């Protein structure tokens, strides 16, 4: 693949995009998992799908200028995240209810858009399961911008995000702007989901945010270490997954996710073995 990467631009694009996603998805994933919000990623990825389907539909029916569907996907995802927050405050005692509501809404919309378009070509398929050849140079730039925003935000809001994740009541009582920070966080999650979808596909996006973290919290001492391990495991599965999928001609999303599962199993087994 390395040789081929020098030859083909699409492979270079996929590789860059993959490395960036392997960094930002687990980075945000740590905060999502410890706050027990893992399913939010799932709900938002389905809303993103609705956005993509809407964009493809408009392109096909109205012949509207061929926008990158990523933008519409991002828009839907951010809107979905705001809706989840709204629902969480409506259903104070059943906060997890917001997630299936948004998730089914997302699927419902997607199915309607897809049927309106009388089905799409392989394009939609690549969004569902991820694709190496589909990553355009423009996609890479979008992903680069999102990665910069995410890393900078986590860097500057690290201590606030930590406090908010660890102890929400204390965060509120200590007078930090918890609501605003939570809001920024959830928008970042929406953006990263839209960005990751190109490589791993909508159906598998959430696994890249949760599986490396699930492995990492088995072995990490402390939060910083949990972040470091998560990113390490994320990068390992993305890079190895891209190579393997290219060499063996497999779907990249599935390969990456199965590698994450392997890493997770190894950490569980390793921890057991270490205990005796």
């Amino acid at each position: 693949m390395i040789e081929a990467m020098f030859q083909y631009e699409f492979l270079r694009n996929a590789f860059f995009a993959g490395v960036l996603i392997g960094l930002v998805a687990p980075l945000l994933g740590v905060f999502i998992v410890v706050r027990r919000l893992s399913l939010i990623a799932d709900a938002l990825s389905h809303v993103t799908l609705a956005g993509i389907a809407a964009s493809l539909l408009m392109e096909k029916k109205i012949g509207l200028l061929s926008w990158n569907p990523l933008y519409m996907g991002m828009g839907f995802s951010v809107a979905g995240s705001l809706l989840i927050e709204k629902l969480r405050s409506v259903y104070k005692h059943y906060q997890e209810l917001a997630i299936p509501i948004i998730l089914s809404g997302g699927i419902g919309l997607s199915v309607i858009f897809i049927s309106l378009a009388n089905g799409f070509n392989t394009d939609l398929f690549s969004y569902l399961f991820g694709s190496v050849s589909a990553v355009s140079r423009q996609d890479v730039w979008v992903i680069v911008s999102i990665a910069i925003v995410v890393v900078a935000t986590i860097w500057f809001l690290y201590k606030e995000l930590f406090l908010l994740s660890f102890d929400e009541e204390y965060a509120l009582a200590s007078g930090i702007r918890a609501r605003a920070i939570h809001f920024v966080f959830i928008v970042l999650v929406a953006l990263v989901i839209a960005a990751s979808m190109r490589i791993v596909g909508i159906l598998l996006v959430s696994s890249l945010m949760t599986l490396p973290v699930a492995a990492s919290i088995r072995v990490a001492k402390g939060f910083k270490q949990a972040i470091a391990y998560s990113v390490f495991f994320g990068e390992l599965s993305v890079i190895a997954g891209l190579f393997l999928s290219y060499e063996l001609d497999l779907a990249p999303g599935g390969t990456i996710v199965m590698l994450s599962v392997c890493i997770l199993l190894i950490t569980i087994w390793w921890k057991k073995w270490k205990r005796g």
Partner: protein
Amino acid sequence: MTKEEALKVEHVSFRYEKENVLEDVTFSVPKGAFLGLVGPNGSGKSTLLKCILGLLKPQQGNIFLFGTPISEFKEWHRVGFVSQKANSFNTGFPATVEEVVASGLTAKLGLFRFFTRKEKDAVKEAIEAVGMTKFQKQNIGELSGGQQQRVFIARAIVSKPELLILDEPTVGVDVHHVQNFYNMLEELNRHLGITLVLVTHDVGTITEKVTHVACLNKHLYFHGKAAEFAELQADDLSAFYGHHLHVLSHQH
């Protein structure tokens, strides 16, 4: 309103649903005082503290911190807090004792500022004060309930608050460490002049260490100097505690 009051509660009434949990509660805590807040289970102590911390908004009345109404109060780092439910956090959370204690400095440091040598020293000091130095690199979920509680106390004092609010902070802490802990509170109060508000069921300690006592059971039944509280007749207390008196008098 004088500047000398760390906390002032004025005619506060609060209800979650229909019935009032707090009714017309009025009292104030002078700077440098050590107030013991007592009352039977469900008497509204935790609710009152949550109102003071701005987590709940009373339907009636006003609360002032250092002379400022809490709706306008911005300097929350001057107020420390140990919650009654401190150890009900997610025990699988991968955070070390050090990291948890350091998070107590978040508000004081402010947005976009990073921990420096000075903050790291303060964290070390606070961990030492609760006798947890040996555990500082351990994940908090791997500690016992009492040890976790001590970590939360360290988190509350690390920012050197001027007013420290503690809701039954010693639940699950063993006798030896409770003694240490009360000595530490006394130290904070006497030598550093930190104002303390302590909710406890341990009336024995109350009369020994505190300067002021407030008895709450929806209404404020008593508020005054500790010496006056000690002089209260058993009759007065039983009216206030009802059947709880028997249990409590055992602890003397």
